[in-house]
C-alpha cells in the first residue's frame, strides 16, 4: 500500500500501454483524481479520458475547478448523469452515455474521443469498476474490461481502473488481476 502523496512518482515509473488497477481508500478518492488528471499529465502531450459511472462529471469538474486544475486536456465520458436525470444541457468536454449498462457505448465513446482529439499519449480512467459492477453482471463486465483494455493497449494508452477499498470484492479483485498489469493500493495521508 502506498500513501496518496507517493502516487505521482509511482505513476511516472509506468510504461505506456500499462493497465493499472488502483484500489483507493475513500478518503483518498479526490486526491487520486487530482493525481491522474494533473500531476501525471503536467508538461506532457497527454489527453485524459475520464470515464465516470460513480459520480457525475459536473461534480468532478467542480472539484477540479476548486483545486484550480487545468481541464483543457480532460475529456469526460459520463455514464451516470442521464441515469439520474441530471443532464439539462450538454456540457463542453463531456460525452454522455445513457446508462452504465451500455458498456459497448462506453467503449465507443472512448474510441470516439481517441479519434476526435488525437494526441501523442492518452490516459483512460475508469471510475469505477465497483459502480459498473452494480449495474452489470460479472461475466459481461469481465468481457468488457478484457476487450476494452486490449483495445487501449493497441492504442498505447495508459489505463487506470479505479475501485474503492471499502467496497472490496473477491470477484472484482480476480477480474482486475486478470486484465491489469499492476495493482496499486492507495491510502489517505490523513
Amino acid at each position, binding site marked *: 500500500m502506498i500513501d496518496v502523496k507517493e502516487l505521482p512518482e509511482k505513476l511516472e515509473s509506468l510504461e505506456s500501454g500499462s493497465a493499472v488497477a488502483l484500489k483507493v481508500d475513500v478518503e483518498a478518492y479526490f486526491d487520486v483524481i487530482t493525481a491522474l488528471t494533473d500531476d501525471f499529465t503536467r508538461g506532457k502531450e497527454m489527453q485524459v479520458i475520464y470515464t465516470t459511472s460513480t459520480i457525475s462529471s459536473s461534480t468532478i469538474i467542480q472539484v477540479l475547478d476548486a483545486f484550480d486544475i487545468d481541464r483543457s486536456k480532460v475529456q469526460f465520458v459520463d455514464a451516470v448523469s442521464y441515469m439520474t436525470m441530471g443532464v439539462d444541457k450538454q456540457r463542453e468536454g463531456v460525452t454522455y452515455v*445513457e*446508462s452504465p*449498462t*451500455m*458498456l*459497448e*457505448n462506453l*467503449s*465507443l*465513446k472512448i*474510441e*470516439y474521443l481517441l*479519434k*476526435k482529439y488525437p494526441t501523442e499519449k492518452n490516459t483512460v480512467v475508469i471510475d469505477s469498476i465497483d459502480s459498473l459492477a452494480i449495474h452489470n*453482471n460479472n*461475466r*459481461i463486465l*469481465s*468481457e*468488457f474490461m478484457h*476487450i476494452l483494455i486490449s*483495445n487501449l493497449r493497441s492504442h498505447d494508452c495508459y489505463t487506470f481502473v479505479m475501485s474503492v477499498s471499502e467496497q472490496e470484492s473477491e470477484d472484482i479483485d480476480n477480474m482486475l488481476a486478470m486484465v491489469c498489469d499492476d495493482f496499486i493500493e492507495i491510502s489517505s495521508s490523513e
Partner: protein
Amino acid sequence: METKDDISIIPDEKREKCVTGIEGLDTILNGGIPRGNSVLITGSCGTGKTTLSLEFLVHGARKDENCLFISVTEASEKMLNNVVPYDFFDESLIEQGKLNFVDTPDIYEELGLRDKSEFSFKEINELVDKIEELVVENDIERLVVDSVTSICFQLKTEEKIRDFMLNLMKTLSSHGCTSLLVSEISPEAERYSQYGVEEAIADGIIMMGNMERQGDLLRTLQVVKMRGTDHSRAKYVLDLTAVGVLLVPMLKGGGFDAGGENK
C-alpha cells in the same frame, strides 16, 4: 456459350477490395467489399443505413473515386441536412464532381414515369438503362441507392422485382461499380429484405438493427453474407459520430442470456 477456358475464377484473396473507409467494417470484411459487388444494406428505420452508406461514398470521393448517391425516399438536400455532420466531409467534393447526388423524381420525370403507379418491364429496363448511363458517363466507382425498397414498391410483382434487381446488379457489376442498395424492412421482419427477392440476388447483405437489452436500445451491425471475401459474421454495436461510424464487438456475457431482442 462460355467454354471452360473463357471462365476465369479469381480466388477470394486476390479479388480487389473496395476499402469502405469505415475502419471497423473494413476489419469485419477482411479489407473491404470485393469490387463490383452489390450489397444490400438492410434494416428498419433509425438503424443508420443512410449514414453508413453516405460515409462509404464520402471516403470514396476523398480517395478520388467518382461516387453517386441516388436518393429515392427524400430529397438529397434534406437528407444531407439530417445526417451526422462529419469532421471529414468536404463540400468541395461535390463541387469537384467526386460526390454526386441524383433524386429519383428527376429521373422519373425524364423517363415519363413520374405519375405511374406501376412500372412495366419495359419501363424497368429504361430505369436500369438510365442508372447505367449515369454510372458510365460519370465513371462512377461507388454507388448508393437509398432505397431500392421504395423503387420496388412501384414494381408490384415478384417477377418484376427480380427482373429489376438482377438487371441492376448485373449492370453495375459489369462496370466494376461497387454498390450499396439500401433495403428497408419492418422491425418484426424475419428476413433480410422487404420482398425476399433482393436478399437472394445480392452479393452481400449487411444487416443493421436496433437491439433492446435490459431497456437499452443498441444499434447493431452484422455482415450476413459477402461473396468474394472471408468475413466475420458476429454482431457489432455501432455509433454514428462526427468521426464516422464506429463499431465494437457486441458483448455476450460469457453465454449469459442478456435478454437481447431485435427490434
